């Protein structure tokens, strides 16, 4: 199967796409029997070093309902200067610019290696990126100080022409005016009252007093960026000013009495931030960055009351339907998230507190708008500081690794329909002939909006084969899918990336082995996991697990070879061999298990699971465990308690945590100080090796994982022990695997 593996990898590298099945069953019935749906993981902006964007408009199919982009899959009649859409078979004239086209003079989009191509187009005025800081001031002095520093630092990381704004909140919400000299002004809002966008704009003086002004100055341009500039100013103009302002930020001055939580108006603050941008910069790339140090305690979106004696809701409370504010708060944030998404803005949440901060309720803000969600213990940790810094990381070509306001349009050939997508997106409700009635994830549409994305943002897209059982394999034997992603590049250019892929059809009855061989178990595991997690958001945990189990059983039933009543005869082909193991760890993962996790943590984990690419997702499902010892080079070992040996150093990467665990003996050696003795330099190297590797991971991952260095018997060892398969414990040696 090496070929398939290569094929898959190659495709992924080129197109950022991984399908669960790389040979497609040709009938609906067969497809459903495959258990794992036909789906793909798409990384729309996958970084391509070798893909220089082209500076012209894509050529579109002229059929209004199709509008597919000219691709290498299209049939071209060079003489007639015609091309046939491979989705709707419409024949289209090339535009005049393509007059010189010929077999030897092909535009890039017709070359097979450009199955993925990026266009730079001129659409509308370019507006600079917008960063609106929404800062909680109900923090401990130390935290606030750290946060202020991070924010000040971030100013230097922003694009020079980016607009920044600042909203602070505590008991009140303050929108700071950044333009003024001398006295610093801010507009203040009550933290308990929800306002409509219109009200907010009126109160901020942003609504345009159309009549009088026009009379006075009829020549006024329709565009009035001046108005909004009071609150959003180019960084280069006001960075000193803003730095000072941030420096003067005080903790929320309202007294907090004993036994109370500070009153924190997160809900209103967000609402105002959304309203502000909505009124001034709709449909331009903007990030609302929320920094909060605790749960919202008042106003719309409050998650918990201000009485400390009533703790914030736990999973237990939620199960018992005992979370008073949850539904209302969730609704508030959902409304906000939808508005934000409609405007093409995104909301990041940076929540740093020891207790929960209401991520459960607020998660949709980040989930629906493609914003980041970061959870830490304090703003004064490197976890936050570096993660935040990494938001502004630049890619290989010096561009920010962020894009805004993307819309993803999926087109399929007739035998396929689109069932839905799971990822940081919302539906654009584009109905069409290729939209399936069966929904998986966010369905009912062929277009989604992804307000913010980065090169690793990955969506799962699910398809349904609609070819009837008896129908022949479609003409040409291949099915095709085209992904058209329009987005605002961080350089503020508008770009369109088009990926067109095709896969062979196969008759599942006669060619099952082809299909089987073309199974991408990794992608399938992730795709199934996303489905499971997606379900877990709305269903009871056990139901989801049961569903997952059943799917696994059915898959094994379908593809496994066994003799009835003989467990030992069970065999799965190589392309399926890892799949059950993924499922096993998935069941135990925090994505599906809420035990020992707060609702916030669950939301946090699930958020990241729904947007990371395949590799990272797999790590999340099944953490990677490397062993370092004198016995050989570092090697991955089973995520099993049997891998824990005294003379090993283990490095576990769960995506959220990096754990370095020194085996018993190693730990003793280290304590004895052998690493400092020149004659034991190799020991020193051994100790150093996992640190270096961990550092490498830490450098690249977003959000930055929690870094744990521990040893045998250390209290932090629990992070490792809780992940490994407990094959060996004090009382059930070898008990696993037995059917009980």
């Amino acid at each position: 199967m090496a070929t398939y593996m290569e094929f898959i990898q190659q495709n992924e590298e080129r197109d950022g796409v991984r399908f669960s099945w790389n040979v497609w069953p040709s009938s609906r019935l067969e497809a459903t029997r495959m258990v794992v749906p036909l789906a793909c993981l798409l990384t729309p902006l996958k970084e391509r070093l070798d893909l220089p964007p082209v500076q012209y408009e894509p050529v579109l199919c002229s059929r209004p309902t199709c509008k597919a982009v000219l691709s290498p899959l299209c049939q071209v009649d060079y003489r007639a200067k015609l091309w046939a859409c491979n989705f709707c078979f419409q024949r289209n004239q090339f535009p005049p610019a393509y007059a010189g086209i010929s077999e030897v003079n092909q535009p890039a989009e017709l070359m097979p290696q450009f199955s993925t191509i990026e266009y730079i187009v001129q659409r509308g005025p370019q507006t600079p990126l917008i960063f609106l800081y929404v800062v909680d001031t109900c923090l401990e002095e130390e935290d606030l100080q750290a946060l202020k520093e991070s924010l000040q630092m971030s100013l230097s990381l922003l694009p020079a022409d980016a607009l920044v704004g600042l909203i602070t909140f505590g008991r009140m919400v303050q929108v700071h005016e950044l333009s003024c000299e001398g006295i610093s002004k801010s507009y203040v809002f009550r933290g308990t009252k929800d306002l409509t966008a219109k009200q907010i704009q009126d109160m901020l003086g942003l609504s345009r007093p159309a009549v009088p002004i026009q009379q006075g100055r009829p020549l006024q341009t329709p565009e009035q960026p001046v108005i909004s500039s009071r609150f959003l100013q180019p960084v280069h103009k006001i960075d000193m000013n803003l730095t000072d302002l941030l420096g003067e930020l005080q903790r929320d001055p309202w007294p907090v009495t004993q036994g109370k939580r500070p009153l924190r108006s997160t809900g209103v603050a967000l609402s105002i931030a959304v309203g502000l941008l909505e009124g001034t910069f709709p449909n331009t790339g903007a990030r609302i960055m929320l920094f909060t140090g605790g749960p919202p305690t008042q106003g719309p979106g409050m998650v918990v009351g201000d009485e400390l004696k009533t703790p914030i809701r736990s999973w237990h409370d939620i199960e018992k339907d005992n979370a008073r504010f949850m539904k209302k708060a969730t609704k508030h944030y959902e409304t906000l998230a939808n508005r934000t998404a409609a405007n093409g803005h995104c909301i990041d949440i940076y929540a740093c507190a020891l207790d929960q901060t209401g991520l459960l309720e607020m998660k949709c803000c980040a989930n629906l708008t493609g914003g980041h969600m970061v959870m830490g213990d304090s703003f004064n940790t490197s976890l936050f500081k570096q993660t935040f810094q990494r938001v502004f990381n630049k890619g290989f070509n010096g561009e920010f690794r962020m894009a805004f306001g993307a819309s993803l349009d999926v087109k399929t050939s007739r035998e396929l329909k689109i069932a839905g997508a799971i990822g940081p997106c919302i539906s654009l409700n584009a109905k069409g002939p290729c939209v399936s009635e069966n929904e998986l994830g966010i369905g009912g549409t062929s277009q989604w909006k992804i307000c913010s994305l980065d090169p690793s943002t990955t969506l799962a897209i699910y398809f349904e084969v609609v070819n009837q059982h008896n129908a022949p394999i479609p003409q040409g034997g291949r099915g095709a899918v085209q992904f058209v992603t329009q987005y605002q590049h961080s350089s503020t250019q508008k770009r369109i990336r088009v990926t067109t892929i095709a896969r062979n059809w196969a008759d599942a009855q006669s060619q099952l082995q082809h299909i089987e061989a073309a199974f991408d178990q990794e992608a399938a595991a992730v795709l199934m996991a996303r489905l499971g997690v997606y379900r877990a958001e709305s269903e009871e945990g056990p139901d989801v697990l049961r569903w997952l189990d059943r799917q696994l059983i059915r898959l094994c039933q379908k593809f496994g070879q066994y003799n009835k009543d003989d467990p030992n005869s069970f065999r799965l082909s190589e392309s399926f061999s890892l799949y059950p193991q993924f499922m096993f760890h998935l069941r135990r993962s925090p994505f599906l298990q809420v035990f020992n996790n707060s609702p916030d943590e669950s939301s946090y984990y699930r958020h990241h699971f729904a947007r990371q690419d395949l590799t990272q997702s797999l790590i999340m499902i099944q953490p990677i465990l490397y062993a370092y010892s004198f016995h050989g080079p570092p090697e991955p070992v089973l995520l099993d308690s049997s891998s824990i040996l005294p003379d090993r150093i283990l490095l576990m990467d769960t995506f959220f945590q990096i754990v370095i665990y020194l085996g018993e003996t190693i730990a003793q050696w280290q304590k004895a100080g052998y690493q400092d003795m020149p004659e034991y330099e190799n020991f020193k190297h051994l100790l150093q090796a996992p640190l270096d590797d961990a550092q490498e991971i830490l450098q690249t991952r977003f959000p930055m994982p929690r870094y744990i260095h521990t040893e045998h018997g250390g209290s932090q060892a629990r992070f490792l022990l809780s992940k490994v398969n407990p094959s060996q414990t004090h009382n059930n040696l070898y008990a696993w695997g037995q059917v009980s």
Partner: protein
Amino acid sequence: MSVNQQAHTGPPYGQPQPGYQGYQQPAYGGQPLPGVPQSQYGAYNGPMPGYQQPVPPQGSLRAPPTSGAPPPASGASLPSGHLAYGQFGHGDVQNGIPASAAPMQRPPASQSFLPGSAPTPVSQTATFQQYGPPPASVQQLSNHMAGMTIGSTTASAPSPAGLGYGPPTSVPPVSGSFSATGSGLYTPYTASQGPSPTSVSQGLPLAQPLFPGQLMSTQRLPTQVPGFAPPPSSAGIGPSSYPPSTGAPRPPTMPGPPLPGQTVAGPPTSQPNHVSSPPPPSTMSGPHPGPPMSGLHGPPPPTHPPQPGYQMQQNGSFGQVRGPQPNYGGAYPGTPNYGSQPGPPPPPKRLDPDSIPSPQLNELPPQQKPRHRIDPDAIPSPIQVIEDDRSNRGSEPFVTGVRGQVPPLVTTNFLVKDQGNASPRYIRCTSYNIPCTSDMAKQSQVPLAAVIKPLATLPPEETLPYLVDHGESGPVRCNRCKAYMCPFMQFIEGGRRFQCCFCSCVTEVPPHYFQHLDHTGKRVDFYDRPELSLGSYEFLATVDYCKNNKFPSPPAFIFMIDVSYNAVKSGLVRLICEELKSLLDYLPREGNMEESAIRVGFVTYNKVLHFYNVKSSLAQPQMMVVSDVADMFVPLLDGFLVNVNESRTVIASLLDQIPEMFADTRETETVFAPVIQAGLEALKAAECAGKLFIFHTSLPIAEAPGKLKNRDDKKLINTDKEKTLFQPQTSFYNNLAKDCVAQGCCVDLFLFPNQYLDVATLGVVTYQTGGSIYKYAYFQLETDQDRFLNDLRRDVQKEVGFDAVMRVRTSTGIRATDFFGAFYMSNTTDVEMAGLDCDKTITVEFKHDDKLSEDSGALLQCALLYTSCAGQRRLRIHNLSLNCCIQLADLYRNCETDTLINYLAKYAYRGVLNSPVKTVRDALINQCAQILACYRKNCASPSSAGQLILPECMKLLPVYLNCVLKSDVLQPGPEVTTDDRAYIRQLVTSMDVAETNVFFYPRLLPLTKADVNSDSLPAAIRNSEERLSKGDIYLLENGLNIFVWVGVNVQQGLIQNLFGVSSFSQISSALSTLPVLENPFSKKVRSIVDMLQVQRSRYMKLIIVKQEDKLEMLFKHFLVEDKSLSGGASYVDFLCHMHKEIRQLLS
């Protein structure tokens, strides 16, 4: 506190007093030679103690002190005994005066004693007199005696003594009074005491003599003093009839004098007594010289219009001596005493509408007067009354030891010595003698009301109320009615318990407060404790008296400045900011504190509000905009209210920047209610009380709570809907006011309207929170700047209390039923004021709910709980004792017309909220007619129906009432805007008596008559055009405006001197200040203007009016004795109308 104690000496005195009441009198009366002791007594008595039987002890103590005034700076009030004497003289006089009042009441006792000597009723007075003599040692006394002498000649033994004294030069006026008294006994005291109302009343009758009506007077004449001519009191308006002839008849009656008088007095009204004096009239006719007496007695006499008459009398008798003192009533008082000594009934004034009243002025030969029309000079003249009172009572301190004594008029400058009753600066009553029963009260229709100014400013010579700390358990109070410990509480059972003087409940004295009683039943520490010996004092409140059981924080001032287009353009914003920079250093502070404890905050606003963070640690102020005006809140806590000194630089920077920031504003709309809400919320958040200073320019039409619409509609005037102009257009502000009061948020409003801005609505909160409104229509920097800044300075600096609750407790039998003023009431008894400053007055009306007793009188205790400007919670207590009467005449004799007018005006001004203005006016006239008719029916001697008889104390009632009726609120002229009316309506509601007095009857001073070499003001003249001379310059002030009226024929030199221009035509009426010129006349005029400005709580607007200029219309509006353009009656017309009404009622 200790101050009082010096009084150790006091005790001795005190003791005697008790004795007095009973004994002394007899003793004295009989023997002219009181032993040494007597002398002492005399002294005491003089003070009043003696008289006031009810409260003897106190009186004594204090009396001396007051008199002592000169001596000890300390307690002024309690000079040592010896001193007392010396002082006495002075003191006595003063005391005496008050005492006189007392005497009246007491009739019974006195009678028994004095039978022989003097008319019974006056007995007390008599006693005094007697004393006086003995102590004679004191020169001062002698003075009085002088007066006495005269009297003596006429009648009783005392006289001799009097003679002896005579020599003393001391106070001439006093002497005068004595003389009047005729009886030697009185002389000394009477002089002092005599003046009391009674005397006055008498005076009036005198006047009458002139008229046919005189008959009445004649009857009374019985008094010994035939010598005196019953001066036809000015009051006596009687027809020209004065003809001496009438006088003649009287004499006859007179004869009966001494005794008859008594008899008469006893029974019906005191009047007869008064009359007695009249007889002399005939004699008097001669020269006026006599006046002397008037001086002394004068006090009461205010009524004197009759003076002229008196003078004559006096002259007759005394001639020379009195010469110096101008004519007056002084004489009258004296006389009256004689005659009736007892309680001479108030001398009624009579007016025969059809006939011409007799001229009051001596100069005018009665007969000459034509009868066809009423001579304006013959009708009671406010100027005359004021002058009389001033000269009679202005020179001596008013000592408050005696129950029910009528204080001098508000127009009189006098010092007050607190000896157990609150100073009239704190409380004034419509009557100091209350009918015992509600039937009487109803019959008389005289409203029983007290005008209370709890935090009144005292002149520097008077001592502020002492602060008493009763420790953790708080002030000692009656268990049942919760009245606070006061001088009237009676200690019993050896001091272990005390009986409440209000409800009679007996309460245990708390152990820590226990003190033994001396043999008179008085606590030994009587003089050590202000609450036992003074009428006004303060308690330190304990935490129980604080909101939420927490001691209050120091209050805060929040300045809220309108920065809309109008305000910025007119330069107002800049002006305010500039001024605040320096003004903030003068925030009120307590006593000797280094800096004010008051914190300040700043807000600007137009359609939205801008709060400023001026925390001292900031380099720059921070502005916080709140645009959610629908739901106001305060955006910051820390840094909004700051200490001025700590945040000085930040505040200065802010005040510099505010005008700049809004220099280009185009915002014309404003909000208003949210501004108040913001202030309120700020104070709430800071958990303190405070005051908002709002500078506002326009009708708040921006979308916000409390948004108003322009509903001005002059067509509503004189319709049933007129009242809506005074009502707020929305109840929103009422609710807001309630919240403000609950928090102790007082709102002061400075308005700068260029058009209608609905003062009636905007002022609601101000009004109900005890704030002040200042209005500067068409504000212009050049002309109005000074006025505004002065007002602002004063408003910011003046003493103010916060979060105040006032309750008035009364003796069983009457009850405070109605309240007028700027405050809020959440129940029927407690007056709540978010802020109460030294200018705010509350008028309280009392009604009977049971009978009162003549013996115990009626007591008032006004307790004000408030937070001082340093944040200290205190209780200020004012106590006042009043007499009670079963004779209506006593009521009429002890009335205070100015106070009455204050009450009536407030009552009427409230009435317009609910009834058509016409109804209100009619009701006023009707009530007044009933009052006078009742007097005529019950107190005046029978006379022809054609005669108008006015009680001496109320002879100005018609003229003042007419002024009220003609005021802008009740009868607006065409140029008066709706806002003005609402403004004035609210303004009057919290005016004190002095303010209403000058507001309704403006002061008109002939500037050209001013003596440039003296400090004094020229004598005022009556407010009538016919009094103005084309060749003179006049100044008219009513507390809001100062007009300088320039006649067309004024000498050029004067014009040059005053205006710096060469001719009349060059005078600019646009001037808002007089040019500063270096010449005596200019200096004098400017000093007069300055002096007037200082006297008033608001800086008056100066308007130059040239005769026959357009502005003269406005000016004429204030000539209140004339017919007004808006239809108001002239004084004479109104008097006739009144008379008709009375006749109707009587028939």
